[in-house]
C-alpha cells in the first residue's frame, strides 16, 4: 500500500515537474528505496538545500526491493538499495550498460545483546555467531564463548537469538557474512533478505529486534550499527579476517570498504565488503547503493538531470562528512574516485552533463 502511494506520489511529482517548475523556478527530484540510509538521506537533502534552495528532493523509505521496482518502472528518479542489483534486476531495468549504481556510504551490522551483569563489550567470531543462530551454542557460558572472552564472568544463561521478521538488507548482510563463516549455515540456512531460521524469535525492523533484545535477558540480535549506537544498545566486537576483535566504528567500517575500488567494473559498482583483510576492518560491513539510469532522459528536463548529478556529486564529497557524524561510514578515497568517474558518464538525452568540477 505504501509503495502504491509512493508510486502515485512520484508519478504526480513527475507530471507536475514538467510544468512551470522546469522553467527554472526549481526542480523536484524523487527517490525511493532502502530504509537503512533514510535518516542520512534526509539530512543530506536538508544540508544540500542550504546551498541549492531551488532543488527539492524527496526520498521514500519503502524498502530496497520497492526501490529497485520503482526505478525499473521509472516511477522515481533514483533508487536506494542495501543489496546491489542482481543480474536479473539489471536486465529488467535495461541492462548494466544503461545503469549507474554507486555506493553512497557503508554501514555495519552489529551483534547486540542483553546480558545483565556483563559490562565489558563481548567478543564474537563468525563461526560462533553462526552456531548461535544454528542452535548449536545455546548457553552464554559455552566453552567457546568463554575462551574468547577472558576475564568476563559469563553467566549460565540460555541464549535467545533474535532475528528480523521482515525482509531486509540487514538480514542479507548478516546471513551473507555467516554463510561465508560456516559451511553448515551456508547449506542449511543460506543467505538472503529473508531466510528460514532454525531457532530464535523475530521482531519487525531494527526497532522490533531492539525491543525484543532489550526485553529479554540472555538474548542476542543483529541490528544496524547506527541504530544501536543512537539508541545506546550494547553490542560486541567481531573477529575479523586478520584475527583481531574489532568493534564497529565509522573508521573500522570505512576501512572495510577501502579495498573495494579494485573490484568495481563498469558503471554498476558493487562489492561485498564483509570479512575484508586489514587489522582495523570491521567484518560485518556493507555498502548501501544509489541507482539512476545512465541516460537521465527519464527525468522531465535537463535542469532536473543536472540537479540530480549535482546532488550525487555533493553526496559523495561534502556529504561524506555529514555521514560520519551520524555513524554512517564515509567512502574511502579510492572508492570515491571510482564513484566520481562513474557519475561523469551520466548523460541527458545523449548529451553529457559535464565532468565533475574539482
Amino acid at each position, binding site marked *: 500500500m505504501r509503495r502504491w502511494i509512493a508510486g502515485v506520489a512520484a508519478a504526480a511529482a513527475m507530471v507536475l515537474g514538467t510544468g512551470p517548475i522546469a522553467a527554472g523556478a526549481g526542480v523536484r527530484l524523487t527517490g525511493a528505496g532502502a530504509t537503512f540510509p533514510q535518516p542520512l538521506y534526509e539530512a543530506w537533502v536538508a544540508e544540500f538545500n542550504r546551498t541549492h534552495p531551488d532543488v527539492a528532493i524527496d526520498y521514500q523509505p519503502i524498502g530496497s526491493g520497492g526501490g529497485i521496482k520503482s526505478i525499473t518502472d521509472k516511477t522515481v528518479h533514483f533508487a536506494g538499495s542495501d543489496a546491489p542489483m542482481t543480474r536479473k534486476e539489471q536486465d529488467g531495468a535495461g541492462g548494466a550498460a544503461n545503469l549507474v549504481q554507486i555506493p553512497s556510504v557503508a554501514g555495519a551490522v552489529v551483534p547486540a545483546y542483553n546480558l545483565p551483569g556483563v559490562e565489558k563489550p563481548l567478543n564474537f567470531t563468525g563461526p560462533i555467531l553462526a552456531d548461535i543462530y544454528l542452535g548449536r551454542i545455546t548457553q552464554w557460558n559455552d566453552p567457546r564463548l568463554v575462551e574468547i572472552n577472558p576475564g568476563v564472568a559469563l553467566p549460565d544463561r540460555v541464549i*535467545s537469538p533474535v532475528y528480523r521478521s521482515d525482509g531486509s538488507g540487514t538480514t542479507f548482510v548478516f*546471513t551473507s557474512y555467516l554463510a561465508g563463516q560456516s559451511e553448515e549455515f551456508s547449506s542449511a540456512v543460506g543467505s538472503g533478505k529473508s531466510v528460514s531460521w532454525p531457532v530464535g524469535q523475530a521482531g519487525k525492523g531494527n526497532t522490533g529486534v531492539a525491543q*525484543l533484545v532489550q526485553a529479554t535477558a540472555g538474548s542476542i540480535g543483529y541490528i544496524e550499527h547506527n541504530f544501536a549506537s543512537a539508541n545506546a544498545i550494547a553490542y560486541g566486537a567481531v573477529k575479523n579476517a586478520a584475527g583481531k576483535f574489532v568493534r564497529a566504528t565509522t573508521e573500522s567500517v570505512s576501512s572495510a570498504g577501502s579495498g573495494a575500488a579494485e573490484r568495481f567494473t563498469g558503471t554498476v559498482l558493487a562489492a561485498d565488503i564483509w570479512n575484508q583483510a586489514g587489522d582495523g576492518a570491521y567484518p560485518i560491513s556493507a555498502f548501501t547503493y544509489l541507482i539512476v539510469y545512465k541516460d537521465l532522459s527519464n527525468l522531465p528536463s535537463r535542469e532536473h538531470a543536472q540537479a540530480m548529478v549535482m546532488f550525487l556529486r555533493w553526496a559523495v564529497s561534502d556529504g561524506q562528512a555529514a555521514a560520519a557524524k551520524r555513524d554512517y561510514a564515509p567512502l574511502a578515497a579510492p572508492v570515491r574516485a571510482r564513484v566520481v568517474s562513474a557519475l561523469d558518464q551520466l548523460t541527458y538525452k545523449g548529451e553529457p552533463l559535464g565532468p565533475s568540477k574539482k
Partner: protein
Amino acid sequence: MSRGTTAPTPPGPADPGQTGGTPLKLRLGVVSGDLALGLLCRGAAALVLLMLVALVGLLGHAALPSLRAFGADYFTSAEWRPNELTRPLRGPDGRVVVVDGERQTETLPPRFGALPVIYGTVATSLIALVFAVPLSLGAALFLVRVAPRWRAAAPVAFLIEFLAAIPSLAYGMWGAFVLVPFLGRHVEPLVFRALGDVTWLKFLFYRDNPVTGQSIRIPLEGRDMMAGGLILAIMILPIVTAVARDVLRAVPRSQIEGSLALGATWWQSSRAMLRYGRAGLFGAVMLGLARAAGETMAVTLVVGNRVEIVPSPFASIQTMASLLANQFNDPVTEVHRSALIGVALILLVISLLFNIVARSLVVGGQSRTALSD
C-alpha cells in the same frame, strides 16, 4: 426519530397516497425522484458487492503465480523460505557427491508453504475462544438476567463495549510489555516446574532443531501462541458478549416463565435459555473467531513471529495476518509477493465464511424468537 416532528404537518408531495390534488409537473418530479433514488440505492448496493467480487478476483489473480508454481505444496508444506539455498549434493547414501574431485552442489528454489501460518491463526483463535467464550457467556447472562437494568447492566455493557474501541496497537503494547513478561517470568516457569518431567508432556517444552536434529528446550519467554491467544481473547470479548447478550435478550419470556413454572431452578432456566439461543450464540462465537483470525498488530508484538509448526502453546508462531504485516511491505521476489497475496486470499475467504455462517445463525435465531415473541 424525525417522524415524530413531521407527523403534524400536512402530507407533503412525497406521500404517494395523498397526491390527488397536486399538479402533474410535481407528480412527475416525484416519480422520477423515486426512480433516481431507487436506482442510486440499487447501484450502491451492487457496487459494494462488486467491490467484494473484484477484491477476491484481484487477489486470486495476483496469487496465481505462486499457486501455479507450488500447487498443492502451497497448502501442505510447512516450509516458508524466501531465499534460494545452495547446498552440497548428497547421494542416496547420504554422502556428498564428488565428480572429478569437485564437490557437487544443488540449488533449492525458494519455497512457500502456507500451512504454518494457517496453523498459527487457527491455534491462536482457538485458544482465544477457550478463554473468551465462557467469560462472554457469563457476562451476557449477567447482563440479561442478574444485573439491575439501570444501576449495573448499562454501565457494565458500556465498559465491555468500550473494550472494542481500544486500538489494536494498544493491546499489542500491553501484551508486549505486561502480558509477555508476566507469562515468561511467572506462569511458564511454574508450568515447566510442575509438568516438565512428565514424559508424555515433553512436546509442550521441547522441540526439534530442524538443522541439527537435536531436541532443544522451547525458551518459555512468553512470546508464544499462548500470549497471542490471550490477547485475542480480550479483544474478542466485547463482540461475543454484545451479540450473546442480544441473543439471550431475544429469548421469549414465555420460555423462561414456562421453565420456572415447571419448577426449574435459576440455573436450570438459564440453561434452557442458552439452549434456546444456541444457534445465535454459536453465531456470536463465529463472529469472535472471524475477528481473532484477522487481528494483526497486537498479535505481531506477542507471538514471536516464527513461521513453523511446533505443537506446543509455548512455542513462537506466526499468523496469516501477522505474516502479511511483517513481510508484505518489501517482499524479496515476485513469487514471494504472490505467495503473500495467496495468504491474504486464504484469510479473506476464511473470514468471509465465518462471517456468513455467523450472520445466518444470529439472524436466523433472532427471527425465530421474534415470531414467538
